[in-house]
């Protein structure tokens, strides 16, 4: 079962949806002789900068091409005016409300590719870079992620996917082919959970009929 976007746990669900969406895309990108999707044997998606993974000499050279997504920045804006309540959840029997707030989040991911000679070298890096572009760049990709993430409670929008520069470095004396400086910006809308605290609602306001009296002769 795949994860879909949940506005009440926005950060967790965004991270998981993007990981699963990317993994599904990379899985579809490679086939065996029978035509089956085998990309998950070639690519690994991790949702952090792979520092600790690479710091041990046991893991390099790695057999799968790594694609990392790391959250660099989250810009959050409140929605609405005044007290920013978008749903009051009025209970007519008790005359109380349990208000919910809504927020907009723009999450900026750093995206990188890591490949060694044993997993395909620069060819693996080029393929991964192209697959990433197909998954996150353009209107088709935006619509694909919207559909993938939308479980009936809101989608995730791609705002931009840009950058990417090739660099070669050495980890444990082994050449590692990297793509650095790529950014993915997505947008989502979250809401707070319905609070247990019940607040008194402002009930109907009755305005008594005004009677205007004029001095005699001026009406």
């Amino acid at each position: 079962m795949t994860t879909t976007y949940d506005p009440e746990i926005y950060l967790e669900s965004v991270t998981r949806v993007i990981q699963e969406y990317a993994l599904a895309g990379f899985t579809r990108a490679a086939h065996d002789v029978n035509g089956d999707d085998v990309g998950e044997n070639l690519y690994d998606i991790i949702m952090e900068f792979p520092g600790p993974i690479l710091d041990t000499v046991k893991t390099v050279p790695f057999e799968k091409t790594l694609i990392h997504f790391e959250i660099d920045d989250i810009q959050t804006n409140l929605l609405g005016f005044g007290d920013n309540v978008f749903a009051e959840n009025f209970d007519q029997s008790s005359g109380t409300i349990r208000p919910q707030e809504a927020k907009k989040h723009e999450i900026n991911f750093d995206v990188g590719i890591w490949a060694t000679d044993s997993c395909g070298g620069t060819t693996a890096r080029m393929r991964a870079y192209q697959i990433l572009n197909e998954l996150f760049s353009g209107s088709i990709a935006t619509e694909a992620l919207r559909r993938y993430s939308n479980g009936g409670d809101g989608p995730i929008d791609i705002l931009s996917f840009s950058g990417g520069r090739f660099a070669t470095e050495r980890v444990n004396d082994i050449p590692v082919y990297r793509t650095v400086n790529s950014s993915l910006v997505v947008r989502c809308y979250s809401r707070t959970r319905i609070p247990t605290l019940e607040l008194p609602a402002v009930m109907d306001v009755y305005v008594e009929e005004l009677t205007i009296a004029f001095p005699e002769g001026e009406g």
Partner: protein
Amino acid sequence: MARLTLYQAPRGKPLLSVEKSSINAVEAYIRWLSVECPKYMHIGTNILCQQMAYVNQSEARRMSFGPHDPREQNPNAAWRLPVRRISERYYRGWKVKPIMNGWMLFNDSREAYFIEFGISRVGFSWAIRGDRQERLGPRRTPTRRIRRPVRKLSLIRTLKYMASTQAYHRIWSEIYTTRQHVAGFTQKVQSPGMGSFSGPMLGRRLPG
């Protein structure tokens, strides 16, 4: 020990500070130019780009002004933001210069590339003995690999700062113009090996 200097003063021209009022004044100047002499509007947008570059520089320098630790005796300060100052070259390295179509923020220190992209000499003197990973020889190597995207985060903070000024609508339009346009805003990180299409072979060019 240096004190935090947010801006590198332009040659021969002292610069005190870029405030929101400065940006707003430039915006007013651009509006006046657009009505009175639109032919010279690029002068105003160029000043705006310059001011933005200085704001970006100040944000980058703030994030590079960590604890002063020339003898590397404070390991708790390592791999964090703001960046620990060992030689201070990284902090001093943030500079602004004019380029053909705008202004560029750059860092001319060698370590800038490694800090920005999480590149380090991890594992040079380590080996596996049995099940343990042990250190060989006296050569000091970092034990962790962490990227600290000062350049990227400083640009994001700059845009947030600009969002609170009256010139933000103009920043939107200028960022997405092409480099052939009259004015623009550029950020680059120079690789230490001077780079090529595939980038430098970093491991081979490090100081011994």
